[in-house]
């Protein structure tokens, strides 16, 4: 009964989110995000049909649709990257570089691990989904680190998008980790935690995307140095000078 209520509430908020998106014309601004929401809604409707008409095929359909929505979920990350970092080419470059390193590390581990650990395997579908969520968590963490480090301002829309998706990813990752560790003992965590966290994300999105709030743009009149190399070299020499003095003091 509770589970049903949680899922029904999710559908209602999804409708609200799409309705507001159409009404305040956010669809065209946040194309990837609304594609994700629409795909989740379609997947939910399809699943309801499968449960009613072909309950035996539920598991096959569940994983196929779950993977499809997981892939469209990467669109949200792209949306966040485009809207928050595009006015800051330096920070964007740094985020892409760090993201590539993070993804490369995970990919190399997945490719190399079976050679060094013969008993290692990608495991079940649950473990596969958990690993994909881990990559998403890694990307969102890199993005947050860049936002904090460079002090990049974020508008209400994008802040809500990051918070909502982050909450969902973190909860999914944790509940999938529990599920792949001991599926039977933590079944309740998975069955209740997953839809509940999705509902929480939907509510955050609905509040944040109620109306259009553009991201703050940097002041175009400020150009400190024409050359990044010169700025970086100067900062490096500042650090070098301080470090040399401190090193000398420590040895004295």
């Amino acid at each position, binding site marked *: 009964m509770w589970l049903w209520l949680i899922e029904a509430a999710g559908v209602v908020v999804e409708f609200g989110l799409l309705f507001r998106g159409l009404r305040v014309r956010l669809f065209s601004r946040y194309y990837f995000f609304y594609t994700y929401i629409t795909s989740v809604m379609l997947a939910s409707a399809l699943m309801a049909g499968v449960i009613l008409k072909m309950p035996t095929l539920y598991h096959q359909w569940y994983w196929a649709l779950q993977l499809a929505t997981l892939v469209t979920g990467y669109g949200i990350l792209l949306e966040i990257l485009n809207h928050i970092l595009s006015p*800051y*080419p*330096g*920070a964007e*470059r*740094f985020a892409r*570089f*760090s993201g590539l390193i993070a993804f490369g590390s995970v990919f190399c581990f997945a490719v190399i691990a079976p050679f060094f650990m013969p008993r290692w395997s990608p495991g079940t579908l649950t473990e596969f989904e958990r690993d994909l969520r*881990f990559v998403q*968590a890694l990307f*969102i*963490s890199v993005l*947050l680190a860049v*936002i904090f*480090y*460079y*002090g*990049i*301002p*974020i508008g209400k829309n994008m*802040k809500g998008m*990051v*918070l909502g998706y*982050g*909450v969902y*990813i*973190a*909860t999914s*990752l*944790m509940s999938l*980790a*529990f599920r*792949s*560790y001991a599926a039977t003992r933590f079944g309740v965590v998975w069955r209740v935690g997953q839809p509940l966290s999705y509902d929480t994300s939907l509510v955050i999105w609905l509040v944040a995307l109620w109306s259009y709030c553009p991201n703050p743009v*940097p*002041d175009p*009149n*400020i150009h*400190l*140095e024409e050359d*990044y*190399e010169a*700025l*970086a070299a*100067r*900062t*490096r*020499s*500042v*650090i*070098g*000078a*301080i*470090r*040399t*003095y*401190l090193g000398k*003091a*420590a040895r*004295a």
Partner: protein
Amino acid sequence: MIQLIFFLSIGVLLFASLFFLARRSPRPEGGSGALIEARQALVALQAGLLPIELVQRIFAEQDWEYVRSQSPAAVRELFLEERKKVALLWIDQVRAQIRSLSRFHRGSARSYARLNPRLEMELALGFAGLMFACRVLRVVVYVGGPYAAPRMVGAMANAASRACKISEQSLAFLNAAQLGMLGGRSTGAAAL
């Protein structure tokens, strides 16, 4: 079990980052505000915090020797306590101003399309190392008193002075007229 702990830790870290994001002030960072802040930091360091006379006065051992030879125990204790407070405040101020200079660099670097990620990582580690050194000095003074690390204090003051000279070159393009213009645009930035 290790896998479970690993994934749970990532989840918890992500939640913590989201918490900080939610609490983050909506005030725009960088831009003209950061420039004025950096300039203020430079002025505060050069004129207020780093002059050798001030550093020597705060950490002068002669003062302590005089008080020790002339005063009763209660006065000696009070003197050390008060001097320690002043020393800690001085370290905190220097640290805050160095942090402001670092923020200035990040505020500028984020807009460069030709930014070098490796160099940025190196600089980030450099600033983190300096902040750590300031923290160490703070702990040393807090535990050992204001006269525990005289050489380190002197070295830190000299290093910060040199850092200011270099930063001054970076901010040299900001003449008084430009600062006035930026001050008018910036929200809540105090005039220099």
